[in-house]
């Protein structure tokens, strides 16, 4: 039966998707707001890296080798910041979005799935920019004197983000939300200790050091340190390790991610 014409016309169909860039921008803005509004996420992404940087620079707890402590710590803490946002934060947030049907509902919206993932990546990058700015300012206040090419640093940060995003999404898309919450925090803690962030890897026994050096967090913190502390050129070894993690993580996430 046709009923058109008896109504007020307020709800008369006029469907259509918004332009893609507008949808992705709106989605990225919302995701970023959700992240910045979440206290636990801020603890992970802002408070912990900042505290570690300030505390270990000011107090001589860990033997960071020659030179100022902040020159050793700042690259490690930048690596930690990338991990906290791209891996831990993204895994937990996405895990709960999956659990609460947010991903499901958005999948029925005009925003395509790849658009949602793009928006998530933009949101991660925006958060990382805020983190890097904040941590850089604090590091400078602590007397940091970085070296090296900013472009190489950017490349390391981007590859690190890709590697951690793949692993975070793999976890969020396959485990239950509670399991993701627990596992992502545990991994964060383990990699914080064993990934060369604040404890130099040469404090570990040789065998352990070689294995730990293959972790994405070690590759990122080591690569950043090579450039920022020692003024090295392009750390191809570390970039290679990150690239392998990025390809493997993103491919596995693409294959195994479950939207519901």
């Amino acid at each position, binding site marked *: *039966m*046709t*009923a*058109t*014409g*008896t*109504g*007020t*016309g*307020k*709800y*008369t*169909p*006029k*469907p*259509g*998707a*918004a*332009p893609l860039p*507008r*949808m992705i921008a*709106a*989605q990225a803005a*919302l995701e970023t*707001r*959700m992240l910045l*509004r*979440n206290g636990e996420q801020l603890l992970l992404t802002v408070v912990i890296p900042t505290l570690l940087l300030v505390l270990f620079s000011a107090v001589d707890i860990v033997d960071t080798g020659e030179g100022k402590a902040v020159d050793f710590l700042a690259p490690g803490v930048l690596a930690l910041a990338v991990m906290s946002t791209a891996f831990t934060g993204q895994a937990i947030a996405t895990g*709960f*979005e999956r659990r*609460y*049907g*947010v991903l*499901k*509902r958005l*999948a*029925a*919206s*005009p*925003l*395509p799935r790849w658009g949602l993932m793009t928006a998530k990546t933009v949101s991660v990058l925006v958060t990382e920019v805020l983190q890097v700015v904040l941590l850089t300012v604090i590091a400078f206040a602590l007397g940091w004197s970085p070296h090296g090419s900013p472009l190489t640093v950017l490349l390391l940060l981007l590859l690190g983000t890709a590697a951690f995003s793949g692993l975070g999404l793999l976890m969020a898309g396959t485990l239950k939300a509670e399991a993701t919450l627990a596992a992502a925090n545990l991994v964060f803690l383990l990699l914080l200790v064993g990934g060369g962030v604040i404890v130099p890897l040469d404090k570990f026994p040789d065998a352990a050091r070689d294995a730990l050096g293959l972790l994405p967090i070690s590759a990122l913190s080591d690569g950043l340190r090579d450039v920022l502390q020692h003024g090295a050129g392009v750390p191809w070894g570390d970039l290679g390790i990150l690239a392998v993690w990025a390809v493997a993580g993103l491919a596995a996430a693409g294959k195994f991610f479950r939207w*519901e």
Partner: protein
Amino acid sequence: MRSEPVVQVQALVKRYGTKTAVDGLDLVARAGVTAVLGPNGAGKTTTVETCEGYRKPDSGTVRVLGLDPVRQAGELRPRIGVMLQSGGVYSGARAEEMLRHVAKLHAHPLDVDALVERLGLGSCGRTTYRRLSGGQQQRLALAMAVVGRPELVFLDEPTAGLDPQARRATWDLVRDLRADGVSVILTTHFMDEAEQLADDVAIIDAGRVIAQGSPEELCRGGAENTLRFTGRPGLDLASLLKALPADSAVAELTPGSYRVVGKVDPQLLATVTSWCAQHGVMPDRISVERHTLEDVFLELTGKELRS
């Protein structure tokens, strides 16, 4: 004039592991409001979610607005509105914020302020989703389904758990959508909801459509109607049965309480009352009962709808 179907489901089968949720289901929905009625576990949500493109049929075909919901999802999604049975909102998002966001994903959304006011979501203020009441969460999900000005809206149990006032507000919105030419597919296990809102009702049980038609057709079609009266106990029903048309049945349900089942028309009523007069019976509380969808369901399946 019959319009083109908005939803066409043919021989749909959907299994989860060894459990068959939908078992050869056929459904055609046209413009207007179609209610998919059935008990919990009948396959309502699976059917609707297949139409929404969430599930791939194990076999059979599904067309929504003429499109394949899985392969032509990109084309279909802007044209439909979806209300999930629960969830769908960031736990840290505010009601209006989320609604505005969904509006931004569409080219010509409804006026968000007006929709917020109409559904009483303004009072939610800065409260985040996880702290909203169940009713507020339901109304937000409904608003999100219609804000993009879709041609077709899927509402999965839109009034489950709502208080009567919120329920009426939802019904009013569905009626307004229909009046403006929006088609609505809603699942429900409330008969009154189907009777009140639907142009067409599909009754589902055990993964199949077992009857479909307008509420009037379903209540009339095939279903026998009932006449009840009370009188003194132990009447001679054999002689009453002889006076009635051949396909009638008579029973004394409890002492003094009688039920006549058959084609209840003025002639039958007259037959019963004149038989009573002949036998000196004063039929107290004589009543004619129309079949409800609940009776239809009970007859078709032998089950209560709300089990």
